[in-house]
């Protein structure tokens, strides 16, 4: 299949553009692009990058195709429902262009695997759908000095930008942390897990990401660096806003690969302190239980019961808590009591002592409600 004439014909209509030319095509064929998230943004980005002849494409997605995806993810078809997106995307793209190499990573991107996966690529395209992964990808790209083609949608609007691109001066353009140094806290952004989206909007934004990627690889045109473009699908208005390079942003990115691997992006994004309250529900509590660095404290008196099982905790009664504070070393502390009232007081005292140096949570509804939840769940 790697017949020169076939390749020439496949790419002929872009090669005859004088700004692009044979040189542009060769750059694309040698390039390695990683698309993280093969959903609404990732599908069009993948289709155009593969069609254009980007020689090596990686696809990271741990999700499976569902029927609600199909209106905005036309890379898949009805027969693909229930199958892994990464594999189905690879299959569809290989049919579109058998002359390129495609690698599927049907895995969730984590701080453990992100650096190893991203390291092997020249450019990263963010097509994910949550803040935790977006901040993780941004930080990984800054650490590894990889350009990041960012895209995101909200209802009828989309954002596009190219972050951390090495400019001719040798300096790097701004990254997502320059725009929003910290992830939003709970309640600061309406939840959009089930928000509506018109299928063509991520289609447009994902295609713009593919366009920026192709420009970045070939060196054509002007990139959306040091700025962010907003597109409104209802009005067709675009609005480009300049992003200044601030020093605050630089201090937010972990300083080393080791520090990156210690980051808990999920926690960072669900953080509710200092002004949003400390309370977490039983479900959030359970997700935090699995984190190694969490210290859990029962602030009830020693004679109180029931005693929960299934996780480790210390018993320091509310009356003794202030004295015991110097011994609390973990950066994440969860307190619980019977009903959640004393633990809320404990959380406030801990915050007064440690401020934002520790993440502090109080189990809402107390251990009684947690135990009730769990006994119901088992029935």
């Amino acid at each position, binding site marked *: 299949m790697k017949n020169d004439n076939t390749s020439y014909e496949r790419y002929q209509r872009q090669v005859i553009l004088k700004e692009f030319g044979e040189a542009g095509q060769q750059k694309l064929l040698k390039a390695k692009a990683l698309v993280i*998230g093969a*959903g*609404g*943004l*990732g599908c069009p980005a993948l289709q155009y990058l593969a069609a254009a002849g980007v020689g090596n494409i990686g696809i990271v997605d741990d999700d499976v195709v569902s029927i609600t995806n199909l209106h905005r993810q036309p890379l898949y078809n009805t027969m693909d429902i229930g199958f892994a997106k990464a594999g189905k995307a690879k299959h569809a793209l290989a049919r579109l262009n058998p002359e390129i190499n495609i690698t599927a990573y049907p895995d969730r991107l984590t701080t453990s695997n992100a650096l190893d996966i991203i390291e092997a690529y020249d450019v990263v395209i*963010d*097509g*994910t*759908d*949550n*803040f935790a992964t*977006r901040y993780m990808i941004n930080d990984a790209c800054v650490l590894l000095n990889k350009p990041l083609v960012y*895209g*995101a*949608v*909200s*209802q009828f*609007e*989309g*954002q596009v930008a190219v972050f951390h691109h090495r400019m001719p001066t040798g300096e790097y353009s701004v990254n997502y942390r320059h*725009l*929003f140094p910290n992830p*939003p*806290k709970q*309640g*600061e*952004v*309406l939840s*959009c897990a089930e*928000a509506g*989206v018109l299928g063509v909007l*991520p289609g447009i934004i994902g295609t713009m990401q593919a366009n920026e990627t192709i420009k970045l690889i070939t060196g054509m045109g002007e990139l959306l660096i040091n700025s*962010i473009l*907003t597109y*409104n699908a209802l009005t067709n208005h675009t*609005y*480009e*806003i*300049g*992003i*200044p390079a*601030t020093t605050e942003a630089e201090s937010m990115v972990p300083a080393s690969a080791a520090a990156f691997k210690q980051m808990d992006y999920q926690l960072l994004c669900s953080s509710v302190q200092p002004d949003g309250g400390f309370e977490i529900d039983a479900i959030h509590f359970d997700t935090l239980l699995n984190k190694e660095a969490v210290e859990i404290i029962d602030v009830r008196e020693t004679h109180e019961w029931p005693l929960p099982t299934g996780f480790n905790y210390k018993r320091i009664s509310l009356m003794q808590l202030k004295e015991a504070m110097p011994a609390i070393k973990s950066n994440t502390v969860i307190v619980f009591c019977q009903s959640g009232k004393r633990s809320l007081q404990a959380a406030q005292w801990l915050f007064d002592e440690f401020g934002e140096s520790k993440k502090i949570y109080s189990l809402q509804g107390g251990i009684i409600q947690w135990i009730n939840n769990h006994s119901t769940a088992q029935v």
Partner: protein
Amino acid sequence: MNINILLFGQLTDITGIGTITMEDVADTDSVVQNLHRRFPALATSKYVVAVNKNIITGNTLLTQNSTVALLPPFSGG
């Protein structure tokens, strides 16, 4: 002095409109305070402020026909 205010993303769910005109506001802090009074839910929303298409980091003086934009983070994909 007329100031044009543009709101993006889910901020328009709070205000109901994407464009607001304000008179007699000298600086961005006054604009933000005024908006928070009119739309209390904005005070607990996350956004950055831009003046004439550039993000600002502190209070910024406005001039006739300045455009102030409030841009929230988007996460959808």
